[in-house]
């Protein structure tokens, strides 16, 4: 029990420190990093303390230290799964799906009729449990990563399409008239004015799509996969009650998801440096 009470004490101490930090710094500079970091560490300590203090069996909840041990001990397996699921399945599907969506949006840009028709349908589909299409696509494209990429393509297509169409409509009348007075062709206006102006919207869609891509690739593996991949490992390790391996996979998925999102956000910052939401940082 001493483990548990120690963790509670640590929690109280960290909370007091956080209160002081937040009150003093008011959320500027180092406090902005230190406070959430301390909170995260507190959660881990509470977790570890609870598991050890109450001797929770590892088949219900492994301690963070045990998960870390598995993580460092089975790096080759985790790396193989990462390559299979994230690099082959999710990433290729993400690139194909997002490119197809942006190209479709540009293609239907000239037809107000198609836009009025496709936008409600796209919004509708974006709210559906699209991931349910996974068993069908696994049946069509086989068990390997191609079927996972296909699921990801379907999942990311509509959010990106809807956002891109909204973005292409985001320029104001004044700027478009300006283009017209310069005698700009449709293509010039598109590339010099409307596509750059659509970038914040497109990146919004791309950021939503990063999480969807990982979910699609992992969940599709529940319906059949070769003997590697994160979804395969999670479902088989759960069956063997090897929960430390499952948590290690989840940690990898969380890291990969955050890194993927961070990467897209970094590209966004570079591309849309002029937008108000990016200025003054």
């Amino acid at each position, binding site marked *: 029990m001493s483990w548990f009470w120690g963790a509670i004490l640590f929690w109280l101490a960290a*909370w007091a420190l*956080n209160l002081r*930090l*937040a*009150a003093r710094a*008011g*959320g500027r500079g180092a*406090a*902005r990093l230190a*406070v*959430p970091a301390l*909170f*995260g560490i507190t959660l881990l300590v509470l977790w570890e303390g609870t598991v050890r203090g109450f001797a929770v069996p590892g*088949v*219900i909840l492994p301690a963070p230290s045990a998960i870390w041990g598995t993580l460092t001990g089975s790096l080759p397996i985790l790396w193989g799964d990462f390559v299979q699921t994230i690099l082959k399945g999710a990433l290729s599907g993400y690139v194909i799906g997002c490119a197809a969506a942006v190209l479709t949006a540009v293609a239907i840009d000239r037809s107000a*009729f*198609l836009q*009025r*028709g*496709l*936008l*409600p*349908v796209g919004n*509708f589909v974006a*709210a*559906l*449990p699209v*991931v*349910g*299409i996974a*068993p*069908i696509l*696994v*049946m*069509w494209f086989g068990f390997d990563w191609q079927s996972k990429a296909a699921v990801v393509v379907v999942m990311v297509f509509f959010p990106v399409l809807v956002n891109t169409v909204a973005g292409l409509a985001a320029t104001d009348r004044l700027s478009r008239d300006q283009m017209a007075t310069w005698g700009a062709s449709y293509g010039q206006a598109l590339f010099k004015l409307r596509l750059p102006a659509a970038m914040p919207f497109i990146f919004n869609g791309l950021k939503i799509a*990063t*999480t969807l891509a*990982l*979910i699609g690739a*992992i*969940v599709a593996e*529940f*319906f*059949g996969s070769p003997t590697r991949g994160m*979804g395969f490992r*999670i*479902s088989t390790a*759960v*069956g063997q*009650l090897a*929960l430390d391996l*499952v948590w290690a996979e*989840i940690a990898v*998925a*969380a890291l990969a*998801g*955050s890194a*993927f*999102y*961070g990467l897209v956000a970094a590209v966004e910052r570079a591309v849309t440096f002029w937008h108000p939401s990016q200025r003054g940082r």
Partner: protein
Amino acid sequence: MRALVPVLTVVAAIVALWYGGSVWLNSQWTHDQAARVGVEVSLTGVVADTMMQERPVLPAPHQVAKGLWDGVMGQRITSKRSLVWHGWITLSATMLGFAIGTAAGIALAVGIVHSRAMDLSVMPWAIASQTVPILAIAPMVIVVLGGPPMNLPPLIAKAVIAAYLTFFPVVVGMVKGLRSPDAMQLDLLRTYNASALDTLIKLRLPAAMPYLFASLKVAVAASVVGTIVAELPSGAVAGLGARLLQGSYYGQTVQIWAALFMAATLAAGLVAIIALVERLALARMGMGR
């Protein structure tokens, strides 16, 4: 209503493409069958056959419609082959989780708005958690909570996942909403000597309603997906997710598509209900559009 004709055109085009796709994808099997018995099939024969195979690669729309009709109307509601029964299993878990997640999310958002330390420590994690593929945990949660020694009923285990997926959109949206009153409105309440509780109930919560409903629409769609994925692990026999998995094991493509459309109807219906409540509530509060 201006959008009705274009939307119908697009839907008609999708259905036409679908018919074309099912002819194209199913014709292989027809040709194989014909070659096996050594007969030539005409083009019309191929097309006719692709429309009514037992286990087509891509069922034609009318086959899916028939599967859906049989599943919904053709069975007693209590039958295990009834889509209404499976849909109800999924819906009940979704709703339970959605209610828990919404309540917890609003409570945490209120805490975050009133405590600077909580804001600084919890908010970054709440936002970061959105980038994590949470659904991957679903099978583990089901096995751990549903198996010994906890032995929770599947309804609760599934609701936990739905609640988790509901929680974060609600937190993020409500924090934004509770902060939406501007300084002038807050100053006015201060001149009235209003307490923090009064400010919360009379200004912040009403102001947060549009944000809350926007988050709820995202959250309910996510929690339907969460419940369905939670029903995938082997052993689950009830619910639309289990129906999908069984269909994929036995190659029953019509069953998969029917379950998929049932799930889509369920999600779309829930979003539509929230949109309706939103319209009524906001109109009643004088914020209607």
